[in-house]
């Protein structure tokens, strides 16, 4: 019946590449500033992994070893992914669920904003905050935990963890499309915390019950932490290609689910 159904996907605005780049950069800049000023985000999400690290890595077990690796070094490979996961899940899901549920996304959609810019800003911002958490862990470890390693290895670990934010941003987008504005944060915690525990991010994986160790292999944070541990020392010595494959597959699945949510939203509004 309606004549104007799919024009959205076909018609595009002719903008100069530099204008388009400016839009994406500003969208990222303001997404970053928005989250940076959100106490809920910086004070809780970003500082929790640091607090855990200080307590369990620097205050309590600083002089012990796990496998041939000092505890402060080892825990960078677990609290790193823990921080990355929190920064990414909360950075995408909470904002998206709120923007969707409370009308702000409609204001943006009524404007000539390129729709993709909104999502890219959320993903890139999550990567930036993920990088901050990992850098802060390294700084604490080097200054107070006697962590020493070649700079190149540290940079590789940082890069791996920042890229490792992607699966969790994808998961956050999927969650953001199926959670309400108020239910999103508790829902994220309900997934984030048990998943972190079972992946060996709080207690090293070898100290967990055998069943949990089995479960861990199905959880993306386990694979990210094994990649990080493989670099800083203390990994389970599984091939890193497997870890990357699992993370890539998980990312695709989450993006697929997010896409279903996106289309469901479009149809609700367009149908």
């Amino acid at each position, binding site marked *: 019946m309606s004549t*104007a159904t799919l*024009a959205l996907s076909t*018609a595009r605005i002719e903008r100069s590449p530099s204008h388009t780049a400016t839009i994406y950069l500003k969208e990222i800049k*303001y997404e970053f500033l928005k989250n940076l000023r959100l106490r809920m985000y910086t004070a809780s999400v970003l500082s929790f992994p640091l607090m855990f690290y200080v307590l369990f890595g620097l205050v309590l077990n600083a002089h012990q070893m796990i496998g041939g690796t000092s505890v402060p070094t080892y825990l960078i490979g677990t609290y790193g992914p823990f921080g990355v996961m929190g920064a990414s899940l909360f950075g995408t899901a909470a904002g998206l669920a709120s923007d969707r*549920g*409370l009308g702000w996304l*409609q204001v943006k959609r009524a404007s000539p904003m390129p729709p993709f810019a909104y999502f890219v800003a959320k993903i890139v911002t999550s990567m930036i905050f993920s990088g901050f958490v990992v850098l802060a862990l390294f700084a604490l470890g080097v200054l107070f935990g006697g962590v020493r390693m070649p700079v190149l290895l540290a940079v590789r670990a940082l890069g791996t963890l920042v890229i490792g934010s992607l699966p969790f941003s994808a998961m956050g987008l999927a969650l953001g499309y199926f959670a309400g504005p108020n239910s999103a944060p508790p829902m994220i915690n309900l997934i984030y915390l048990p998943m972190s525990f079972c992946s060996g991010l709080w207690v090293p994986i070898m100290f967990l019950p055998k069943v949990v160790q089995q479960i861990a292999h199905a959880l993306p944070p386990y694979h990210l932490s094994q990649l990080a541990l493989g670099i800083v020392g203390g990994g389970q010595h599984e091939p890193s290609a497997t870890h990357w494959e699992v993370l890539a597959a998980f990312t695709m699945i989450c993006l697929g689910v997010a896409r279903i949510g996106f289309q469901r939203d479009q149809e609700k509004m367009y149908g």
Partner: protein
Amino acid sequence: MIAVAEESQLSQRPAQPDSIVASLDGINKNYGDIRALRGVDFGVHAGEVVALLGPNGAGKTTAVKLLLGLMQPNSGRVRVFGGDPTNPENRMRTGAMLQVGKVPETLRVREHIDLFSTYYEHPMPLAEVLAATGLEKLSDRKFGDLSGGQRQRVLFALAICGDPDLLFLDEPTVGLDVEARRLLWDEIRRMVDRGKTVLLTTHYLQEADALADRVAVINQGEIIAQGTPAEIKAKTSGKRIRCITSLSVASVRQIAGVSDVKEDREALEIHAVEAEPVVRELLARDARLSGLEITSAGLEEAFLALTQDSARNGINRTEFTESRHPRPKETQ
């Protein structure tokens, strides 16, 4: 209906069919079983201010969202600048102020405006937007620290910052106090002076009267009247007389020129075409009559009468607009 709309156009400015910048044509929109819009025909011409006036839940916001391409109708045709409203080119030429539950609160006023300005090809300079919306002194404030009126002004600023030709304002002054409302009215008028076309929705009748060239009254998903504010008022012309009297409702109803009588607490509320002969008669019949008040039926009255009529009679719109005009009001 169409006849009324065109008449009002002729009286205002020459109506050119090609000057229609946004239109709904035979629109039906359902949410499940709820029929939000039923056979709505409605157009906005270049350079005019149209108010879509109706109570909550009448379908005003649905109409705006259709025109913004945020929804699709179940049937009918939505056109903006002669094309599809979802066309990104059209989005460049339109600005929208919607009702929002939550705007990112940690961004500053100027940052919000800066970001939205970037989306457009030829945005207004930031200073100009701030000046036009009276936000100069608030530009460094975070959105979360603003009052309700200031927040509305920021949303208005986001709607105008791209210097669009067509503005959709959904309940722009809802929840504002009188002073904040007047400020926003001035800002809307300034946009009109710059040659913008404006469609605003409101349930403040005074607002439609103050701002609009043309008013479309919408109730329960149907447009029940269109015309200039004056024409809408004329449809239910007359005065409202309120007084405390010992006369019975039935006997007052007998007085010539009285169209309706209601008991309102201790007083009677009388609607009449002209006040003076009725008052003269009332005073003659009841020497002890007291608390006399006479007010003219404003748009508010007109609006109530129009919506009550359509609800009571379930009349179709064409009949309503064609035969309603001089029909004397029935008593309820």
